[in-house]
């Protein structure tokens, strides 16, 4: 059977490509890049929140936060598995992360400076992630699409929890309200930039759209996100830190101010607030754990040898 023709047919019919199907090398490469980046983001994304587990201000919040960070580890694992079906071993992807050769979402290079950041991350960062990811549940590559379905379900749960944290703070003491506003001030613009550069500067998008991996442009998704945020911000009682934000009657959308793309490029280029720290943290965990992984591998080998001899 002609693999190329069948691939084109499946894409044209908006059907699923599965691991055993023939696919163009560029499609495979593009997916591995995107899925592993996504996995890395989940793994690096554990850190800003893990930073507050020990200090969570109530046991209930501590439990919720722990469970959330654990979910992120789980998402990382699903995604590595999905990427593995394309032939790249997880160890190889993980090593690339640890060596600083792989990308992850820039948003996680910002520090969490207060408890309200747990709310802002849930509401804004997970919110943006969901906008990005819901369309990916229909991505043409089957294992990726299925991983996304599961992840999106949990993410929307996380977003609600973030919203609730902020809501509680906004109903709290003046100090708590100030804390919430401060966190929203710091996380709002970075979360808008999570959708990537404006459409006219986005390089990979066209091909990804043609392959039914990406469904909407960066700017479209960003607009959808802003439109979603405005009423939620009102419900919370927080101010979105954009003096140019206004409802445009003509388009029916909320127009937003210029974003600082220079800052975005800086963070992407390694000059964000926490780039060094995030990588060093993950690398330290990886290196400190080497002896444990070696012990487990050696033990497994010995067990296998013993089983073989017994047989």
């Amino acid at each position, binding site marked *: 059977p002609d693999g190329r023709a069948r691939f084109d047919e499946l894409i044209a019919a908006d059907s699923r490509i599965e691991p055993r199907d023939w696919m163009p090398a560029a499609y495979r490469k593009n997916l591995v890049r995107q899925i592993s980046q996504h996995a890395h983001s989940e*793994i690096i994304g*554990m*850190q800003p929140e*893990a930073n507050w*587990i*020990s*200090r*969570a*201000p*109530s*046991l*209930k*919040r*501590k*439990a919720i936060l*722990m*469970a959330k*960070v*654990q979910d992120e*580890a*789980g998402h*990382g*694992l699903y995604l590595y598995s999905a990427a593995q079906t394309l032939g790249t071993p997880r160890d190889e992807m993980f090593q690339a992360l640890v060596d600083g050769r792989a990308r992850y979402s820039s948003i996680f290079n910002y520090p969490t400076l207060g*408890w309200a950041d747990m709310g802002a991350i849930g509401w804004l960062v997970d919110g943006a992630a969901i906008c990005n990811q819901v369309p990916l549940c229909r991505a043409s590559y089957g294992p990726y699409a299925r991983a996304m379905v599961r992840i999106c379900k949990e993410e929307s749960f996380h977003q609600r929890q973030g919203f609730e*944290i902020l809501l*509680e*703070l906004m109903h*709290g*003491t003046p*100090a*708590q309200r100030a804390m919430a506003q401060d966190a929203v001030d710091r996380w709002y613009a970075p979360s808008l930039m999570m959708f990537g550069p404006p459409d006219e500067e986005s390089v990979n998008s066209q091909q990804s759209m043609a392959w039914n991996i990406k469904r909407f442009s960066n700017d479209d998704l960003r607009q959808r996100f802003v439109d979603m945020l405005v009423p939620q911000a009102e419900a919370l009682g927080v101010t979105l830190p954009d003096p140019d934000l206004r409802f445009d009657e003509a388009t029916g959308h909320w127009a937003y101010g210029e974003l600082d793309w220079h800052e975005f490029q800086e963070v992407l280029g390694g000059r964000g607030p926490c780039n060094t720290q995030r990588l060093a*943290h*993950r690398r*330290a*965990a990886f290196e*400190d*754990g*080497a*002896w*444990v*992984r*070696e*012990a*487990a*591998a*050696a*033990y497994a080998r*010995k067990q296998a040898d013993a089983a073989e001899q017994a047989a």
Partner: protein
Amino acid sequence: TADAAEYALWLGDDALVLAQCLGWWISRGPELEEDMALANIALDLLGHARSLLSHAGTADGRTEDDLAYWRDEREFRCAQLAELPNGDYAHTLVRQLAFAVFQVELYDRLQESSDATLAAIAAKAAKEVAYHREHSTEWFRRLALGTDDSRRRLLTALEHVWPYVGDLFRDEPLLDRLEGVAVRPSTLRAPFDQAMGALAAETGIELPDPDLARGGGRHGIHTEHLGLLLAELQVLARAHPGATW
């Protein structure tokens, strides 16, 4: 009763402090699966702590958070074993194994407590700590029989941690007033020793003297580690007295 509340506090503080220690590992585990496993165990323990502290608080109208965030070091009742520093993975594992083996025996018997709440908490916890024990036991084998380095680290960890184990089994005077409600720690010693003895024999490990350390956590005498642990645990809640979250 106040006595039953005090007993619930002991067990609750053990679980809370352990959960706090284990939480540190999330994002720092030797592999992602272990990040998840340790988070799981921490979550279970945190759940036990919440139930036990809530129960302890009913005696005088305090909430789980009142007890977790507004008591000072000398008012905590965890065993010193729970507060020992995480150290490397082997230290954490040894501490966790000792607790898991202890708690399996404890919650097994506590299900028959005449205090219905304690019995219900124990029934739920029993299933979870059985998994904790399995997890720790399996890792004990891996470290003991894996590489020379892992075995050496395991032995070092045992040397540091095991002296605090004996304290778990002391029958404090409080127990005399809780016949039928609490489980006498001393009655858990034999099954604990048997389980650990079997594991040690299987792996050719010699366990150090478990009674070397003084202990005293049930009386509010702690190691120097607890103060710093509580500073971190309580800092945010205490910065905002009266706030809800």
